């Protein structure tokens, strides 16, 4: 149980270069969720944080060779599991 506490996180907390598996995107805005699905970023997909822009700016994710930018606020509504 203790270990689970440690690996679960929100996407928005992750740092540049870290990798994670998407656990749930149902907390994100409907529009963002649909777009992420369109781009193949669904539950179970592995993502890697490519960069985090300053002053609370967007984050850039990579999944299966596809890069996507989303706002930090939305990233904080996506549950992930660090790998």
């Amino acid at each position, binding site marked *: 149980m203790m270990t689970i506490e440690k690996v679960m996180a929100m996407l928005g907390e992750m740092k540049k270069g870290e990798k994670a598996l998407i656990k749930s995107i149902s907390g994100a805005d409907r529009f963002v969720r649909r777009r992420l699905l369109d781009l*193949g970023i669904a539950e179970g997909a592995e993502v890697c944080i490519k960069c985090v822009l300053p002053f609370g700016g967007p984050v850039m994710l990579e999944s299966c060779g596809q*890069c*996507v930018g989303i706002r930090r606020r939305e990233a904080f509504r996506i549950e992930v599991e660090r790998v």
Partner: protein
Amino acid sequence: MDIALIGNPNTGKTSLFNNLTGSYEYVGNWSGVTVEKKVGILKNQRDQLIDLPGVYTLNPLSKDEGVVTIFFLNEPFDMLLNILDASQLRRNLHLTIQLLEFGAPIVIGLNMVDVAGNRGIKIDSRNLSACLGVPVVPVVARTGKGCDSLAEMISAEAGQPDIAFEVDYGPAVEKATAALKEKLAGRTKIPARWLAIQFLEGNQYVREFLLNFIGGSELNELLEFVETQLKTDGVKETLEQYMYRKRSEAIETVVARSMVRTEGAGTPLSEKIDRIATNKILGIPLFLLLMYLMFMLTFDWLGFPLSDALDAVITGPVTDWISAGLAAVGASEFINALILDGIVAGVGGVLVFVPQIFILFFFISLLEDSGYMARVALVMDRVMEAAGLNGKAFIPMMIGFGCNVPGIMAARTIETPKERLLTILLTPLMSCSARLPVYALFAGAFFAGDKALIVLSLYVLGIVVALILAKIFSITVLKGETSLFVIELPPYRVPQIQALWRSTWEKGKGFVKKAGTFIFAGSVLIWLLSYAGPGGLKVPMDDSYLAMIGGIFAPIFAPIGFGTWQAGASLLTGFLAKESIISTMNIIYFVPDEATLQGLLSQHFTPLAAYSFMVFILLYVPCLATAATIYKETGSRRWTAFSIGYALLIAYLLSFIVYQGGKLAGWA
């Protein structure tokens, strides 16, 4: 035969369209370049190819993605040409499956096989074809490789397909399909299964379509039936998620049979570039530096000397030849004056700036084709968010530096209606290439030492005013709606010289063409107005009709520093096209060359008034073509009038501040 080109955004549909039809439609390396359907004739001279905006699914998220769904439901077509990005097969197949469910004849063009290859992805097109039951042709749309066999395949494939592929959505969905089929009782040609699947996934357009045949309560019952059925089967997801998962599972089996992964070669180039381009600290400075370089090359280092040289040619040898020619044919004094003082001065005065405009367009094309555009949107998002917009709004603005019309069209990719409207309204503040001649002339005359800096200040002013107004509008006239931002970042592509030149030419062509038609006709008219007056022909210019018309406006402009009839007349023509300002001035102050004109201008303007004039030109009214586009895109007379009204107001206000403030500071 009508063939519709369908695929995910940025998969190379338009590149292929251009290749197959020999056209030069707009290609760029970001998602959402094509915003309108385009029709072309295939090289066999028989079939029509229809290029559509890219979509991820047929279930649209925003109104503008609905274009494709509406096309699907309402317009006749005989065949689908589905373009897949081989390097992103899984995600592309979601759309393909929806197309297959529709049951129309379909050919798949497997594009970007070169990119996939570089990433260590190999796709067996024969296996893919066998899995799906439709022909698959590998192509590289960028170079044209494979396009001939694709064209052949399209011509050969006309009959019904034998689609071997079907996703198993489970018994509940199949039961719903059967029920829907019964209710429709053959009243539409569109397959019931496709309608059922789209409806269950929440496609509003399909729901509305079904309402033509079936009552709303019956539809809701159908939906509830499937939802309860799934719940009893122990499905926890929403219906939409469930359908997505079922499709993904089916895709996995296809991919397993047709895709081979070998080791990709090291870190992709894109990733290396992005380490700097989207770097936390370097991102914005790098963008500004690139803008500065583009700017200096256009206005100072390269463009300026070229324009000067061209000016010398036009005012020197070209004018000499024309006057020699006129003398040889014994032209009357009137014709002589019309051609030399009207047309050569008016049109030539604009053509002089062709080199600078082409350099600017070259850089914009480079930006579009490389993939940097989407990065700029990402890097600028934080700033744009503060102004009540999102980073994607920066793309129309950048394009607007070339010409506001395509810039405003590009705003269609912005998903939220409020942000899109804001972008449409504010893009005209971006200093387009037609305003460039005015700056070049005035900055050269009054601020020769630091002309590039002065012009740069105007471009920056345009952006700053746009951002401030965005904020003001979004808390007053355009309240509400949360701002959203998801952007796809395509891999960088090394621009090809030929493609770059083509797209530079396609953009710059408009400028040259306008000079030859619109500006030409305008010059004739302006010259006539300056030649004739209440006192007859060949009056002194101050007594001409032009002076009378311009004089009406002169008093209004007096408080902002240029209360002359000359300024009034040129600003009036500037509404038709911004280049007209320069051609009008050239005719009014008719002088043999640019240098003399600059000397003459300094008698009519003080440097402060000149700057105020440039600020006014930057901001005042969108040109006629831009206003027409705003009307077309917003579909509202009110917003079009608003865009003209606020621009005039803000232009006057800022010029007033500049001029009166400057005078108080003792600069005049």
